[in-house]
């Protein structure tokens, strides 16, 4: 554990501050994207600040054991059931009068806000504001509810990338001194390498490219389909695996008929949602992953791929180059020719076989840990607490 956590624990303990972590994203059954980030942060909080962290949903406390169990399962399926059936509930949040030293930490949109004297939330992207064409109206409305209000009611706001922070400033005028970058982390359970090594996986020798992500228009899968339709020789030498749950507006990402033959012969595979372990194995064995997205606040699959030294062919869009650095191979997300050229380059250079490239991937990923993300949140928070202890009490009186 980073020694700075001890200092932070000390800074929280003396005045009696407690952290309340909103677990609403963890109620999802499949943890990808925002739920995966919430899980990473929850784990890091339990490991580093167990004496100071509590979990809540709206106005209720959530039992720590239930969170531990959900983190072990990597799914919120039972957490959701147990919370609404009762066993995972741990009573109401402390009364307002007893909340004067409480900090609300929201890993995404605030379901209820202005209930703690100090509140912080994380913005993952402004996609519903900037690229609404990629979203369903209900999704847009859900995110827009807190878009401005969360920023207004936060003491500190965090973006998962510099690109997201810049969007917060450029569109919503977020004040420079109250918005910070907290990059997501990447981690795999320690037993995955062992289990993957021993797993019987017939056909591992057949090389493949992996496309990972929810099937929705923002992910730009249509460009990959276009690539395979225009350059069918790629399918002759490599398989293509497109893994991820079916999202929304799927009609915009429909596979062209010309690729049905490739599907029938197993050269193109769409396994749908894959478990975390299956994802690990798929990433580990791929020649490279392709991430053609039009817009990303972070791009977690890029980091997951690099963490296993699997090269990434990524669009140069939004936050992706910030995360992938010089370990990714970038292309223009609007140009199938650009994607083809980049893919050929990866085939020719075979970076995965290059020890220097693998070392570079590990070097990049070492920066992105959940503990580092938590530190990026807690460091400015502690500084803020030192400045605003008294105003916080006054604000709680106003909330009342």
């Amino acid at each position, binding site marked *: 554990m980073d020694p700075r956590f001890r200092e932070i624990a000390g800074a929280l303990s003396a005045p009696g501050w407690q952290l309340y972590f909103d677990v609403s994203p963890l109620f999802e059954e499949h943890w990808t994207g925002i739920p995966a980030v919430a899980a990473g942060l929850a784990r890091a909080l339990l490991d580093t600040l167990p004496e100071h962290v509590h979990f809540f949903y709206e106005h209720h406390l959530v039992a720590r054991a239930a969170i531990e169990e959900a983190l072990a399962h990597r799914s919120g399926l039972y957490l959701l059931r147990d919370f609404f059936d009762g066993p995972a509930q741990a009573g109401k949040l402390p009364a307002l009068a007893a909340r004067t030293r409480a900090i609300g930490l929201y890993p995404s949109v605030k379901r209820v806000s202005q209930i703690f004297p100090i509140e912080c939330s994380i913005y993952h992207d402004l996609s*519903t*504001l*900037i*690229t*609404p*064409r990629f*979203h369903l*109206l209900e999704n*847009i*409305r859900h995110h*827009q*509810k807190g*878009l*401005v*209000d969360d920023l207004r009611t936060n003491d500190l706001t965090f973006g998962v990338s*510099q*690109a997201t922070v*810049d*969007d917060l*400033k*450029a*569109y*919503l*005028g977020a004040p420079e001194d109250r918005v910070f970058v907290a990059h997501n982390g990447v981690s795999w359970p320690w037993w995955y390498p062992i289990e993957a090594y021993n797993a019987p996986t017939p056909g591992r020798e057949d090389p493949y490219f992996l496309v990972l992500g929810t099937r929705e228009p923002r992910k730009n899968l249509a460009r990959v389909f276009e690539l395979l339709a225009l350059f069918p020789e790629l399918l002759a030498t490599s398989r293509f695996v497109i893994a991820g749950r079916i999202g929304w507006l799927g009609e915009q990402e429909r596979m062209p008929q010309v690729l049905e033959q490739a599907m029938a012969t197993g050269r193109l595979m769409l396994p749908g949602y894959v478990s975390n372990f299956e994802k690990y194995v798929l990433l580990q064995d791929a020649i490279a992953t392709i991430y053609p997205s*039009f*817009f990303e606040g972070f791009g977690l699959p890029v980091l997951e791929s690099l963490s296993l030294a699997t090269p990434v062919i990524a*669009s*140069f*869009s*939004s*936050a*992706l*180059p*910030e995360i992938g650095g010089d370990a990714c191979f*970038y292309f*223009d*997300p*609007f*140009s199938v020719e*650009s994607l083809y050229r980049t893919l050929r380059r990866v085939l020719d250079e075979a970076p995965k076989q290059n020890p220097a490239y693998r070392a570079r991937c590990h070097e990049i990923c070492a920066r992105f840990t959940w503990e580092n993300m938590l530190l990026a949140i807690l460091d400015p928070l502690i500084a803020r607490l030192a400045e605003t202890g008294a105003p916080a009490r006054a604000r709680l009186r106003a909330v009342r």
Partner: protein
Amino acid sequence: MAQPDRPARTARHGTTRGTLTAGVLAPRALLLASAPFVIADPPGAVFPFRRCRVRQTLFGWEAQLQAFAQALAATGREVFFVPAPEIFASLPSFRHIADATGWNEAAEIVHLRFGPACCARVLKTARNALVLAETMPRTPLTPSHHPFARGDRLPAATERLLLYQPLAAPLLRIDGSAVPCEILPSAFSDADLAAAAGRDPTAETGVAEWLVCSFAEFDDATFDAGERQVGKNAARSLDWRGARSLRVIARERGEMPPVQIMLPWNLADPASIVPDLVGKFAGAGGLGPGFRLVVFPYNETPETSAKIAAMIAAARTALTLHPSGLRHFFVARIPRLEDALELAEWFEIAWLEAAAPDRWWNEERLAALGVPVGVIAAPCAGEDAIPCLAPADAEIMLTAADAFGERLFAAATLSPRALAALLANTRARLRPAAAPVRRRA
């Protein structure tokens, strides 16, 4: 074609008449433009705007961008189009801009955003200017969580407003600060028309190649794909060919042909009364044999284009018992600018909604083409009442459910009684159809 520069107006809301070269259009700057429309199969993330094939060359954002690019082309400047300005945030993306445009990194990038204020976007690290044809936003009656839904706020990084006309009310950044404004010279709204008029007439086919069909003939899929096969479609509308033939023959006989009326329809305006007016005409049994109404939808996006089919479906339902009435209503696009020059030959008048946010822009474009304009549904009371063919005598509530939330708008409109007066007043205003612009030149 080019008109004298606009007369100086009272500086309002920080509007100045500064020279553009001293402002955002510095001579060495790289000009990147974006707009809410969607280009089918764009060749890349950055490409010269001249490679864009627009759907509607006469009205809306596409036309504004086209005129703007042409005005700059006359000075040797090139405008590049970026379909998604939001993707540029890091070094590889800016390297791509340099590769695609020859941009020298020492020069600044100016991002020109076209379209309404509520759809403003910024390109990070660039100087961002919004080019605005709307002089007033449509303000919803209902609140929305969307920070820009009211149309009176802009993203914090908007550095400047380039206007065709002074605003009726100030536009502020989201933090409440004022945005410096500049009025564009008139060349920026008609340079494309002037250039088209000057092109070699021998290159013409002699047949107007707009995409047009009657409400009876309309097929959503064909109309949507129309700009890719415009030549074929243009001649295939039997109803339109019939309307044209009728005019030619009537003129030969010295008779009054049916009055052909243009009705521009801003699809991005949630409170446009065009569907209401068409619905009322259809509900009243049609226009009658003496009139043809051609609706020109513009500002089409994947989100707005369904409105065309919905309006026509409603008219078809209303005219179930009199289907021949559908042959008097048309819907049209003009993807080729040269064809716009012929409009004065085919239309006696254009009706413009008084409350349309971009009415002034449309008026100016139509005036440049020699098409007379009649304003309709202006509020009747008050000192600022606009002289119009038929003042508003009714109000409707219109709802919109889109990315800006569920919104309710009140719009001044015309009752069926006022529509009858509108037709009578239109006929009274008639004059012999003008010669096409090119011939006059």
